[in-house]
Structures are given as structure tokens and as C-alpha cells.
């Protein structure tokens, strides 16, 4: 589906990659990314909370079974990697996994479906409708998640090792000699910063690329339907895998923060 004969392919893609934005400069907010993100987060919490309220240790219902499968899967992943005692990591991992999974799943929504729905309901011309519904294809969303994880890494590093221990870890390795401590500090800081950066960029890159390919496919005319299907089927792999990687790396980074050298 092309959104209008008057648009070239390039204009079509650029239009679809633009967010629904209010405000200017740094104070701007992407209403579509953040809106879908919060909406899907609430969907996750509503479903899981409704199960948690009625959770029974007897014979579980079908929804409870499904939720328990997810919870059990996350719990196992956490227990296989993180061996300390921490009441936050497991629910944090669950939130990340399910939420990111839902955010990524927006990639399956056909690229023109939402703009056309909005056009059909409100009558706003298609050219004025900006709707980029995949929140994880917006770097703000992935960096927001990664920043949260980064704050937790710093927090637990200092909490477990103490300020001195944390600084010692940053300066005394990999080189043991005191004259190389500044070099160590630079290296370790880069390592430290690379963690949230890689978390955010990996997720963003995968989903942005996926979205971009969907848009490219949408410009090729009639044959786009089977190609769309193939690309969407491929995302059966990408979407859960990226959610799982984000969760798993969060667990790994936090368990590294808990390790005392």
C-alpha cells in the first residue's frame, strides 16, 4: 500500500520514519513512541496483575498457565546467571522481557495500517499524519531503557563494593602498575559506558532496520504481499530474540556489578 501517488518512494519512507512530535529541540516528546510504549507497558502490567491477584497454587487457569510459563522462563534465566540475593533483578528482567517483546511486536503492525485508520476515523489528510508505531525503533525508547539499566549497574556496583571498591575496580585493572592507573580508568570507563550503549543501539538497530525494510518492501508494488509475509515471518525470530538478549545482558551486567573482585 502506498500512501499516495504524489509521493516518491523516498518521500514515502522519510514520512513514515518521522515521529509524531510535540515541542521543539530537546524538550520535544515523541507522542507515538512514548504513547505506544506506555500503553503496551500498561497492557503487560494489567494482564500480569490480573493473574497475580487471582494466582492460585492449585490448578491454574489457562491465562495463569501462560503467564507462569513466561515468569518461569524469566526466573530460570535469572537463576542460571545471577547467584546473589536480589529482589529486584527477577521482576526487572520480567518487565524488560515482556515489555520489549510487546514494543518489538509493533513491528508486525502493517506500516500503513495505523495512518490509514487515523485518516479514516478523523479525516486528517494522510500527508499530515505522523505515526511510527514501533517504540523500539526510536532511540529515545531504547536509550531510556538502557539508561535505567545503567543507573542500576552503577547503583549496585557502589552498594556491593562500596565507593572505594568501585573506584578500585575502575582503576587497578587490567594493568597492575600504579603509573598506568589513568589508562586503566579510561579503558574501564569506556567498557562501563559501552554496556548501556550497546544494549540500546543493538535493540534500536535491529528494529529500525526491520521497520526500514518493511517500508522498502511497501514501495515495490503488487509483489510486496508475499515479501511482507516473509519479512514478518523472519521477525518471528528477531522480535523475541532481541527482547531475550536485552533481558539476558541486563542480568549479566547486574550480576557483574554484584561480583566482588
Amino acid at each position, binding site marked *: 500500500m502506498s500512501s499516495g501517488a504524489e509521493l516518491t518512494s523516498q518521500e514515502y519512507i522519510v514520512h513514515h520514519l518521522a515521529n509524531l512530535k510535540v*515541542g521543539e*529541540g*530537546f*524538550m*520535544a*516528546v*515523541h507522542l507515538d*513512541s*512514548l504513547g505506544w*510504549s*506506555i500503553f503496551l*507497558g500498561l497492557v*503487560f*502490567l494489567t494482564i*500480569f*496483575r490480573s*493473574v*497475580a*491477584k487471582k*494466582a*492460585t*497454587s*492449585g490448578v*491454574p487457569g489457562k491465562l*495463569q498457565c501462560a*503467564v*507462569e510459563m513466561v*515468569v*518461569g522462563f524469566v*526466573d530460570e534465566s535469572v537463576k542460571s546467571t545471577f547467584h546473589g540475593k536480589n*529482589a*529486584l533483578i*527477577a*521482576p*526487572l528482567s*520480567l*518487565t524488560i522481557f515482556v*515489555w520489549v517483546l510487546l514494543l518489538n511486536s509493533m513491528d508486525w503492525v502493517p506500516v500503513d495500517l495505523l495512518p490509514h485508520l487515523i485518516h479514516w476515523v478523523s479525516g486528517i489528510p494522510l500527508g499530515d499524519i505522523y505515526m511510527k508505531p514501533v*517504540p523500539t525503533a*526510536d*532511540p*529515545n*525508547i531504547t*536509550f*531510556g*531503557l538502557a*539508561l*535505567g539499566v545503567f543507573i542500576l549497574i552503577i547503583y549496585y556496583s557502589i552498594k556491593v563494593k562500596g565507593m572505594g571498591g568501585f573506584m578500585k575496580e575502575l582503576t587497578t585493572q587490567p594493568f597492575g602498575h600504579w603509573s598506568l592507573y589513568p589508562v586503566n580508568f579510561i579503558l574501564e570507563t569506556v567498557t562501563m559506558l559501552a554496556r548501556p550503549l550497546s544494549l540500546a543501539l543493538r535493540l534500536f538497530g535491529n528494529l529500525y532496520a526491520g521497520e526500514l525494510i518493511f517500508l522498502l518492501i511497501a514501495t515495490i508494488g503488487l509483489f510486496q504481499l508475499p515479501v511482507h509475509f516473509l519479512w514478518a515471518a523472519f521477525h518471528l525470530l528477531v522480535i523475541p530474540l532481541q527482547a531475550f538478549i536485552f533481558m539476558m545482558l541486563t542480568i549479566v551486567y547486574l550480576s557483574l556489578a554484584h561480583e566482588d573482585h
Partner: protein
Amino acid sequence: MDINMTLIGQLIAFVVFVIFCMKYVWPPIIGAIEERQATIADGLAASDRAAKDLELAQEKAKSQLKEAKVQAASIVDAAKKHEAKIVEEAAGKAQAEKDRILAAGHAEIETERNRAKEELRAQVAVLAVAGAEKILERSIDAAAHSDILDKLVAEL
């Protein structure tokens, strides 16, 4: 890539969602799962125990059955022995009774015969006397000649 307040909004939403999940979602669900796991583990252990108990009971029943069979055989054996003894005793008793009755019969017959002989003798004596009286045609003093008569009787 334009970074803006969306990032902060996402961060705040993230913090709120994680805290909510930690307080109200994770504990009840994982609690239910762990409780059920414990129940299932208990159930499996109980069924294991029950199977072992059953095996033990079957073995016990088998050994008891065997014992009962042995006991029954010994009882039957004893009973047979007892029976044989009773039969033997009864046979012995019957034999003794028979002998006794036979002996009594014989004795009775003997006494009866003796009595008859005695009677016969006496009658013969009387007849002899009467015959002699008739032959002699005179009365013989029975009293005077009783010694002769007695001798005669004894010779009969």
C-alpha cells in the same frame, strides 16, 4: 537520531513499571509457582512412599500366605495322624470288647451246660431211684440209701 524528552519519559515509565512489577506482580505469581512445586514434590514423594509400602505389603502377604500354607499342611498332617490314632484305638477297643463279649458268652454257655448237666444228673438219679424202686418192688428208704444214690449220681 534526535534525543529528547521522550527518553526521560521512557525512563520514568520504566522505573514506575519495574517498581509496580516488583511490588504487585512478581511476588504473588512466583509464590504460587513455588508453592505448587512444593505440593507436587510432596505428592510425588508420597506416591513413591505408597508404592514402596504396597510392595512391602505384597511381600508380607506373600510370606504370610506361604506360612499359612505350611501351617495348614502341618495341621492336616496332625489331623491325619490323629485320625489314624483314633481309628486304631477304636479298632483296639472293639477287638477287646469282642473278646470280652465272646469270653462272657463262652462262660455263660459253660455255666449253662454245667447247670443242665447238674439238673440232668439229679433227674437221672431220681429216675434211677424210681426205676430201682419199681424193679425191687419195694420201697427203698431214700434217706438210708442216699449215699449210694449220691455215688451213683457222681458216676454219671
